C-alpha cells in the first residue's frame, strides 16, 4: 500500500483511539480523505482497531455514502425523491449527466467527479436539490446544473461555487448554505419566542422523578412518528439497572418528504440541546449523543460550535447551572446514508460502529441500548417539546391540540402546493384545512406521514392529523390530479427496496416483490387477481417484519389499494374466456426461438 495512505489510515484510527466503537468516524473520515475504502485500507483499519477485516467490509458495504471502489474527490448526489422529480428533477439529472459525460453512478475519466442519486436529502420544500460533497444546492435548474459542473471543473471546490445565502443561521459563517428555512407558520410551542434556558432552570429545581412526572402529565408522545409516550420511556430508562446511561437524539430524519428537524437544527438548536440536557437530568445520564444524518453534514461544524458555546456558558459540562453533581455533555455522531438508522435500535447499532441493523427486542433500549447501557432515544422535536413543558408547565402544553394528542406538530409540507415549508399546527387540524392553508388546489392525493404512513384521497380530507386518526412524523406530500398515483407508489417502493437493511426475509424480499407487482400493473401486465396478491403479500410483510421499516413499507401499496382502488382496476386486464389475459405467448417462446434459430410454428 502507498505509504501516504498508510499514514493517513493510521492517523485517523489513532485519532479515534483505535476504538472499534468509533468505526463510523473512522470510515466516514477515510472515505472523505481517500475517496474510497479499498481492501488494503480495510485490512489496515481492521488491524488498527483489532477487528476482522470482514467486519469492516460489513460496515463499508452497508452505508450508501461509503464505498470500496474509489469515488471522485467531488461526489454529486442528486436527490431522486419523487418531489424532486415533480419539480423538474429529471431534466436536472440529464443536464448533470450531459455536462459531466457520465451516467448515474459514474465517475469522470479524470477520476475527479462522481455522479450519484440519493433518496430524500431533506430539501423537498426547495426541490430539486443536490449535495455536492457536503454543500447543498437547492432549486436546481438545468442551467444551474451546468453552471455547477463548469465551476467545479474550474476550481474543484464546491464551497467556492457562487450562491446566495439562506435566511437565519443558514447564513452563519459556519454554515454558509443556500438552504432557506421555509418556516411558514409559527405555533406556540416550537417556533414561538421563549426565554432561553428557562425550562432547564425549572427542571433543575425539581427532582428528576418530578421532571418525568411533568412530561407524563403533559402526555407528550414521540414526534418521530411512532408516538410512544416520552415520560414512560424516560421512566423505564431511569429505572433500568446500570450506572452509565445515555440520551440519544435522533436527528436522522430520513422519511421522504420530511425536513422539519433541519429547521430546528439551524434555528432552535438551543431548545433542542436544552431538552436533551433535561433528558440527561431526568434519566440520570451524563452523556448525550446527537445522531446527525450524513446528509446534514453541512450543519455539523455549526452545531459543534453551538455546543462549545453552551459549555462556555456552563450549560453543558460539570455542575450545570451550578447544580452540584449534575454533569452532562453532548457530542455529535454523523451517519453515512441509511434510512434504517432512523429506527432507534439501528441508530444505536450505528453509534456503536456497526452496520445499521436493528437489534432484537426485548431487551429494549431503555434496558440495554447503546453499548449495552440503558438508553433513551428521542426525536429532535420531542426534546424541544420537553424544554417547553418545563418552562410553561404540563397543563399549558396539554391544553393545546386535540384531546388525545396534546400540543402542536411540525409538518413538513411539499409537493403540489403554493406554500411548501414547515408549519406548526395544533394536533387535530383537518386535512382539508391544512390543504387550504398551504395553497393546495385540485388535490388528488395526500401522503400523510411519509411513505411509511398513508396515501389518502379526497374522501378522507375531513379526517384530522393526530395520533388517533392520521398520525404523522410530519411528512406531508401533496399530489394534484395530474400525478400518476401508481408511479408515486412505485417510487416509494423503490425507496424501501433500496433502504431495507436486508436482515429479515419479509422486508428484504417482500418489498422487491411488491415493487415488481406494481411495476407489472403500470406496464399493463396486471390481472384482477394481482390486487389480492399484492394485498396478501403486503399483509405478510407488515405482520412478520422485524422492525418498523418492514412493518410499514407496504403502506404505499396497501393504502392506495384501499383508497384508489379504481386506479388499479382500470389498469388490470380482465378476460372472460378464462385465459390468462396478460400471457404474452410470443415473448414466452422468444428465448427458445433464439436458441433454435428459427421462428416457432405457431407464431
Amino acid at each position, binding site marked *: 500500500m502507498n505509504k501516504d495512505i498508510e499514514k493517513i489510515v493510521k492517523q485517523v484510527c489513532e485519532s479515534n483511539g483505535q476504538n472499534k466503537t468509533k468505526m463510523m468516524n473512522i470510515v466516514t473520515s477515510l472515505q472523505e480523505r481517500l475517496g474510497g475504502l479499498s*481492501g488494503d485500507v480495510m485490512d489496515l483499519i481492521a488491524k488498527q482497531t483489532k477487528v*476482522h*477485516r*470482514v*467486519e469492516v*467490509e*460489513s460496515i463499508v*458495504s*452497508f452505508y450508501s455514502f461509503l464505498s470500496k471502489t474509489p469515488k471522485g474527490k467531488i461526489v454529486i448526489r442528486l436527490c431522486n425523491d419523487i418531489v424532486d422529480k415533480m419539480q423538474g428533477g429529471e431534466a436536472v439529472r440529464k443536464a448533470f449527466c450531459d455536462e459531466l459525460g457520465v451516467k448515474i453512478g459514474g465517475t469522470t475519466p479524470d477520476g475527479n467527479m462522481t455522479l450519484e442519486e440519493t433518496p430524500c436529502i431533506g430539501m423537498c420544500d426547495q426541490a430539486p436539490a443536490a449535495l455536492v460533497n457536503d454543500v447543498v444546492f437547492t432549486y436546481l435548474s438545468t442551467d444551474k446544473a451546468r453552471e455547477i459542473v463548469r465551476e467545479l471543473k474550474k476550481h474543484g471546490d464546491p464551497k467556492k461555487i457562487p450562491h446566495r445565502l439562506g435566511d437565519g443561521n443558514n447564513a452563519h459563517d459556519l454554515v454558509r448554505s443556500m438552504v432557506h428555512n421555509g418556516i411558514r407558520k409559527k405555533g406556540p410551542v416550537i417556533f414561538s419566542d421563549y426565554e432561553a434556558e428557562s425550562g432547564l432552570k425549572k427542571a433543575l429545581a425539581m427532582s428528576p422523578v418530578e421532571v418525568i412526572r411533568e412530561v407524563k402529565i403533559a402526555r407528550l408522545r414521540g414526534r418521530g412518528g411512532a408516538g410512544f409516550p416520552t415520560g414512560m420511556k424516560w421512566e423505564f430508562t431511569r429505572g433500568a439497572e446500570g450506572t452509565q446511561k445515555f440520551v440519544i437524539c435522533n436527528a436522522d430524519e430520513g422519511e421522504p418528504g420530511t425536513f422539519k428537524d433541519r429547521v430546528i437544527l439551524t434555528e432552535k438548536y438551543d431548545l433542542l440541546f436544552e431538552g436533551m440536557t433535561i433528558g440527561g437530568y431526568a434519566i440520570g445520564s451524563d452523556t448525550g449523543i446527537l445522531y446527525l444524518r450524513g446528509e446534514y453534514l453541512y450543519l455539523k461544524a455549526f452545531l459543534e460550535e453551538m455546543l462549545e458555546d453552551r459549555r462556555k456558558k456552563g450549560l453543558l459540562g460539570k455542575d450545570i447551572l451550578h447544580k452540584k453533581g449534575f454533569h452532562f455533555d453532548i457530542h455529535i455522531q454523523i451517519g453515512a446514508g*441509511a434510512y*434504517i438508522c432512523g429506527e432507534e435500535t439501528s441508530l444505536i447499532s450505528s453509534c456503536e460502529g456497526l*452496520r445499521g441493523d436493528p437489534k*432484537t*427486542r*426485548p431487551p429494549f433500549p431503555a434496558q440495554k441500548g447503546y453499548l449495552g447501557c440503558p438508553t433513551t432515544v428521542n426525536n429532535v422535536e420531542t426534546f424541544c417539546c420537553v424544554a417547553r413543558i418545563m418552562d410553561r408547565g404540563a397543563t399549558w402544553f396539554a391544553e393545546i391540540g386535540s384531546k388525545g394528542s396534546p400540543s402542536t406538530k411540525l409538518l413538513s409540507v411539499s409537493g403540489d402546493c403554493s406554500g411548501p415549508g414547515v408549519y406548526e399546527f395544533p394536533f387535530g387540524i383537518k386535512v382539508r384545512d391544512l390543504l387550504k392553508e398551504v395553497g393546495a388546489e385540485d388535490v388528488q392525493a395526500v401522503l400523510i406521514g411519509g411513505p411509511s404512513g398513508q396515501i389518502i384521497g379526497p374522501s378522507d380530507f375531513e379526517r384530522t392529523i393526530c395520533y388517533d386518526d392520521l398520525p404523522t412524523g410530519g411528512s406531508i406530500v401533496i399530489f394534484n390530479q395530474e400525478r400518476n398515483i401508481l408511479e408515486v407508489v412505485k417510487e416509494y417502493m423503490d425507496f424501501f*427496496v*433500496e*433502504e*431495507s*437493511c*436486508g*436482515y*429479515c*426475509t*419479509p422486508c*428484504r*424480499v*417482500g418489498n*422487491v*416483490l411488491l415493487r*415488481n407487482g406494481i411495476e407489472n400493473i403500470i406496464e399493463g401486465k396486471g390481472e384482477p387477481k394481482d390486487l389480492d*396478491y399484492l394485498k*396478501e*403479500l403486503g399483509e*405478510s410483510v407488515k*405482520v*412478520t*417484519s*422485524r422492525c418498523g421499516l418492514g412493518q410499514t413499507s407496504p403502506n404505499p401499496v396497501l393504502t392506495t389499494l384501499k383508497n384508489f382502488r379504481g386506479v388499479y382496476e382500470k389498469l388490470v386486464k380482465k378476460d372472460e374466456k378464462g385465459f390468462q389475459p396478460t400471457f404474452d405467448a410470443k415473448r414466452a417462446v422468444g428465448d427458445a426461438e433464439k436458441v433454435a434459430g428459427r421462428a416457432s410454428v405457431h407464431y
Partner: protein
Amino acid sequence: MGQTIKFTIDGTEVNGRPGQTIMEAADEAGVYIPRLCYLKELTPHGSCRVCTVIVNGRPQTACTQPIADGMTVENNTPELLEHRKNLVDMLFVEGNHFCMFCEKSGNCELQAMAYRLGILAPKYPFMFPTCEVDASHPDIFIDRNRCILCGRCVQASKDLDGKHVFDFVGRGVHKKIAVDAEAKLVDTDADVRDKAAEVCPVGAILKKHIGFSVPIGKRLYDQKPIGSEIEEKKMTKVKS
C-alpha cells in the same frame, strides 16, 4: 428448580422456566413452532421470521420472545400458516434452489419446511439472481445461490469456533455472506472441523468429498417431516 411460568400455546397450557424463550419452552413441551434460522446452540438471530407467533395479540418471533406468566401464544392458525408459507416462498424465489441436483436435498431444512407447510411450488415469481460460488477451499465450498442469510455460520464461527470467518456485507436484497479475506474462503482460517462448516440449514456451506453419501430414502427428512423430533417428545411424555 425455580418457579414455573405458565402460559398457553393455542389454548394448551405450557410450563416453562424463567429466562426461556417461547421457542425453548415449546420445544421442551413437545410443541413444534416452525423455524429456519434458529439453532439451539446459537443466540437467536430472528431473521427468517418463520417462527412468528401471535403473543397477546401481537406478532413476535418465538425464538426471541421471553415467556411470561399468563401469556397467550397463537401458533397453529390458518393466518400464521399463510404468512409462514409466504416467507418460505420468498426464500425460495430470492435464491436459486435446484433441489433435484443439490446434495443437501433430503437433509435441507428449507426444503423440509416447504414440504411440511405444504408448498409444492412458489407462488412468487423467481428473481434468478447471479450469485458467487466459492470452491477455493480444499474441504469446504460456498454456494451463495442457496444461502438464506440465516446467519448461523456467522455466529457459529464467532461464538463457537472463536474465529470470524463469515459476516454479512451489502444491504437489502444485495445482502450476502462474505468471508474474512479479499474474496476467497481459502484465504481465511476456515477449517473443515469448524462448527461453522456444519450449521448451514441449506446447501450453501457444505463439506467437500462427502456429497450424496446417504442414499435417497435414508436421508434426514425422507422418513419424517421436519419438527417430528420435537413433536415426538410430546408423544413419549403422554405415553409415560
